[in-house]
């Protein structure tokens, strides 16, 4: 199970990577993509959409299931990963890099600290599985 140390994680299995310029990249975790199986479609939000933390902003569909994606932090969508339109399987193949979903400009940078770090998320996963 890959869990980059520098990322933050939500209980809904999204990851947040601080880009250091007031924006973050957001995607779904290795655990989430593995649980979903082959991902065949990602519904992306509009650039410019204003999100509050925990809003659903997109949908990831695998062969078997439909899963909402929730905003781990509040802010404005400043970019979306267009590559997922033609290659949704990038979420499976590269969940933390090529499979990023949106870039959000933070409205409250402090929200990141409320998310779990890698160790915390790993413990959260282990609790869920026990």
């Amino acid at each position: 199970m890959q869990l980059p140390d520098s990322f933050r994680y939500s209980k809904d299995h999204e990851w947040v990577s601080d880009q250091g310029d007031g924006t973050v990249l957001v995607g779904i975790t290795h655990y989430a993509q593995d649980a979903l199986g082959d991902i065949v479609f990602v519904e992306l939000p509009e650039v410019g959409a204003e999100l509050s933390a925990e809003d659903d902003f997109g949908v990831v569909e695998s062969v078997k299931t439909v899963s909402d994606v929730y905003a781990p932090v509040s802010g404005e969508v400043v970019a979306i990963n267009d590559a997922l339109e033609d290659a949704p399987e990038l979420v499976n193949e590269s969940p933390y890099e090529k499979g990023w979903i949106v870039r959000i400009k933070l409205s409250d940078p402090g929200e990141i600290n409320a998310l779990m770090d890698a160790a915390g998320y790993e413990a959260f996963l282990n609790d869920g599985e026990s």
Partner: protein
Amino acid sequence: MSDALHRVPLHARHVELGGRMVPFAGFEMPVQYQGIKDEHLAVRSSAGLFDVSHMGEVEVRGPDAIAAVDALVTNNVRGLVDGQALYTVMCAPDGGIVDDLIVYRLAEDHVFICVNAANRHKDVAFMREYLPSLNATLEDTSDAYVQLALQGPKAEALLQPLVSDAELSAVKFFRCAWMHVAGVNALVARTGYTGEDGFELYIPAEGGATIFDALVERYVPEDLTMCGLGARDTLRLEARLPLYGQDLSAQINPLEAGLSWVVKLDAGHDFVGKAALEAIKAKGVARRLRGFKLEGRGVLRPGYPIFVDDAQVGELTSGGYAPTLDASIGLGYIDTEHTDVERAEVEIRGRRLPVQVSKKPFYSRPR
């Protein structure tokens, strides 16, 4: 909770081979091994092995076995010869579908029936209630069999070297025969639920592991791919084979489901639901099953509404991603007055997207 789930005899082998076990129809079954897309494509190009031991088996024996089964199902069992199989449905007195099943005539006095896992107990109760008082007995033998499905264009070539006393090429589509496979006497039927050539093997439970191990050790992973129920669903959907609980149910009759070909109203004998189906046929059905292919990106799912010219005309009953087509497809019912449209719209999360409407399978194997 999981304690209540049944485990199939080969459960430990599935776990060992990397099967992801999920609850299905009261059983713990492998939904996938390496991934549904790969497994699906392997069945289309080579061969896949499925454990479908959760399916139920019912056997009717006695001098009147054939007449007895004919009283329960809509298709004509007495037209079969020994070793021939028949797809049919079993209907309630109101014409609603109780189950879809495959009936095998093994002998004049022995009919073998394969029923859906989720319907097993309901079916057996229904059969016992409506079994005519003839010289025939009915037994639920589900637990006595391991059922494997070996499906794909290479199925015959892979299975033949394990068979010591029969030529598989002599077993034609929808025929079956007992033969020794890896030394185990099993009922081998040229049937399946994937749209490909292939076999379903009904193996006395104690011999199931012998045949399974022989196939796995000899062929997996090069020529044979372990497959779960996820791929079984995408394969059957591409082949436009209906699924009970979604495309077929007690609220749906076989005439609207496109199964008129299994309803033999002129066969000259009575069966449960016949009068109701005659009345439905005379009046005309209100809706019909159609296939839908999404023109753009997205995934069709059961329950999504179907629109023609701003009017909702039906609902999807199946839907998903079709790996062979790299597109999303579905099945659903639309009101009879609209069944000839070639295009419609399906509403996905509030947005209506164009779909092509078809009466044909999305995929048919090259012959």
